[in-house]
């Protein structure tokens, strides 16, 4: 057991040993580490940081055909010119629209041209659609027509998919070959306001 004078002299010896053993660098390093680690720890313990984020209105729409095959272009295949209406049921194997919007949207549709371009142009009145809020088959036109009125926002983390049925009639006498057109599916916020004071 050490007496107090013995204890002091013992500590002095230990300190001298440490200094003599060139541990000074290590001690200083440890001191710095302790010093720098104490300051931020102290700060973190004594204050709070509020985190605020503003989520903007977002509109989004996707269109796919047959699960995304052929770069999502609609390929209705090779059909007979028999003047009979062909039905292409919407869904995973047909046409479907997906919205990831965080607000209600209106979905409009139109085609670029009044007829399918090809050897014997096919009038667009032969090409129809139904689905979403359009319950009965309606012919595409070159003017916008609403297909999804007030389509609800997508649930969080889960975009909503809607099937769209397509109908096409190839008139008698339509020549063989490839026929093309472009269809637009347009999304606009349902609450898009008119000017406040028109």
């Amino acid at each position, binding site marked *: 057991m050490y007496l107090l004078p013995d204890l002091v002299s013992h500590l002095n010896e230990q300190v001298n040993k440490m200094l003599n053993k060139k541990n000074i660098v290590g001690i200083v390093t440890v001191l710095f580490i302790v010093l720098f680690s104490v300051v931020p720890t102290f700060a973190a313990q004594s204050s709070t940081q509020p985190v605020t984020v503003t989520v*903007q*209105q*977002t*509109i*989004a*729409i*996707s*269109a*796919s*055909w047959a*699960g*995304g*095959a*052929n*770069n*999502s*272009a*609609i*390929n*209705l*295949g*090779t*059909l*007979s*010119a028999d003047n009979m209406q062909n039905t292409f049921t919407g869904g995973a194997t047909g046409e479907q629209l*997906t919205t*990831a*919007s965080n*607000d209600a*949207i*209106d979905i409009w549709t139109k085609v670029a041209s009044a007829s*399918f371009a*090809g050897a014997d142009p096919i009038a667009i009145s032969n090409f129809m659609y139904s689905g979403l809020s359009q319950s009965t088959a309606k012919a595409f036109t070159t*003017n*916008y027509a*609403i297909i999804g009125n007030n389509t609800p926002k997508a649930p969080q983390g889960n975009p909503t998919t809607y099937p769209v049925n397509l109908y*096409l009639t*190839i008139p008698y006498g*339509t020549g*063989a*070959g*490839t*026929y*093309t*057109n*472009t*269809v*637009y*599916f*347009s*999304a*606009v*916020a349902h609450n*898009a*306001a*008119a*000017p*406040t*004071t*028109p």
Partner: protein
Amino acid sequence: MDSKKISKIIPIITVFLISLSFIGSASASGLLASPGGFNVKFTGGPTTYSGTVTVENIGDNTLNVVVNKKRMQKDNVNLIFSDIGIAQWITANPSNFTLAPKEKKAVKFTVNVPANVNYFDAAGALIIDGYSQQSLNSSSNSNSPNLQIQQVPELVVPIIVGLPGPIIESLQMIQHSAPTVLLSFMPGDFAYQLNNNGTVYANITGNIEVDGLLSKHSVPIQGGVFPGDNFTLTSQWTPDFLDFGIYDAKTTINYGRYHQTQTLQTDDKIFVIPVWLILIIILAVAIWFLRKKDIQSPIKIKIERKK
């Protein structure tokens, strides 16, 4: 089949099925825009507003994105775009770019709102179209028609210019003019220079009540003036053959955006000299002059009874 072969085949099938599911769900063409619309507050005078809309390719096809600016008219059954009004106030940059899957691009736009706004032109939109880079297959080996349709996801981001604050209906009459003397069948012009110092379009109706001694007339007036604009409202009144004397012309201008409940009034006096009175005066003066000068008529007409 032994267990070793089965254990080799199962991972291969698993990988194949996973790959298949990715192919099936990932190749949609899709676009996302944020925010989904803008409201520009307009307080009068030329105003410049800048904003940014972020466009993202949420599909798995690389898209050529085209940004157009249009005037928009929208209700429950119509969505119409045109190139007038706000379409000419908006500039967007970039307006044409390529987006790889999951890639984002910030599109900056500026709206230069002119001093005098026709509010029917003040609703516009950025129309953002995503065209797949892969063109349609134009060849067909069949003897029947083959139908292919390109799908274009399109986003409409409205930009609405509107007035903030309360609706103020206010017209100020800067000056007006009315005829003071009129002859029969001589049209008289009334002009009212108005300034709309309110915040909304003023629809104007009203009339000029021309009230005389023996007759009364009502002349309708109609017009409209946009906020900040000066407008000269004109009308005309022509006295009839029988109108004469002093007439009180009381003008009442009713105005308002939807209901013309505000009123401006003026009161003028018009002296109408009838043509017949002028003719009588001329005749009387002539007779008086002839008698005074004792001028004999150079022609004598003798009337005799027939024998």
